[in-house]
């Protein structure tokens, strides 16, 4: 993969907060950056193909849409089995993000899975399903509910 050049970085800076909601958004961005629409589309397509752009999409507000309970479930899983079990947990359709992370002196859990539901009862039921799937390889678990969103923005990279 080639590293993004200066024009790419300006393009990223111009679009990371979102696309303009106009009929020809790429032409609008092109005009702002002083390049052609064809160039904007070609560069975004290349960034998309390289995986620099993960997707071009809507970000639903889970909370506004009724998924008012979201819990970060965390699991202390036997390291030898963590990769294989992480794959299984990540494949559950109610898990939106699933990661292996390092432990810390104040933190014993190495597997993280975000669970969403319309109520805590629904989230707890999903958590029980994860627990059943992990079986004896899981030594302890917890769930951290979000009580407040303190900040939420898209990725912000400085221009240039």
């Amino acid at each position: 993969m080639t590293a993004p050049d200066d024009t790419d970085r300006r393009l990223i800076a111009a679009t990371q907060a979102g696309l303009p909601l106009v009929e020809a958004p790429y032409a609008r961005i092109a005009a702002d950056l002083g390049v052609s629409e064809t160039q904007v589309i070609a560069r975004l397509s290349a960034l998309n193909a390289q995986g620099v752009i993960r997707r071009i999409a809507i970000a639903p507000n889970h909370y506004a849409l009724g998924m008012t309970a979201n819990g970060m479930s965390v699991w202390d899983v036997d390291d030898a089995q963590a990769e294989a079990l992480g794959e299984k947990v990540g494949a559950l359709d109610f898990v939106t993000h699933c990661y292996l992370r390092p432990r810390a002196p104040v933190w014993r859990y190495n597997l993280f899975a975000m669970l969403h539901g319309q109520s805590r009862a629904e989230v707890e039921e999903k958590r029980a399903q994860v627990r059943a799937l992990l079986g004896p390889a899981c030594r302890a678990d917890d769930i951290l509910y979000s009580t407040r969103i303190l900040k939420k923005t898209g990725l912000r990279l400085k221009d240039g």
Partner: protein
Amino acid sequence: MRRQTLPPEALDDTDRAILNNLQEGFPLTPRPFDDAGAALGLTGTALIGRLERLREIGAITRFGPFYDAAAMGGAFCLCALSAPEADFDRIADLVNAHPEVAHNYARDHALNMWFVLATATPEGIAEIAERIEAETGLTVWRFPKLREFFIGFRVAA
């Protein structure tokens, strides 16, 4: 950030179809709203109007490209700290003041503040985390992802 649930009648079937269909693969064509709208039986203008409204009522938080910081040479890191309850809001302000803090959630645990750092370089993570430690006097525990098991963000609308 909207933290209230929309009443069910706030969205009609077309809105729900938009939410479920535009979660990936928005066209890279000169008239992308026309092209995306066609699949939903909408004109580009109608789709734009719907998206404006969805954004206005808080059903969506943003619309556009999602960039992978790591693919651009940057880094992401989940971090957590324990803020004393009485000082919580002040600590949140200190953390949020950094533009590298992409999001931040209060959670009910001894580690009660969880935020994500997004920096232009991998070294930036330690730099910002240490700056937050100096400003707050609290340890910033870092939990970088070692492996990601990813299926999707699709939600039932």
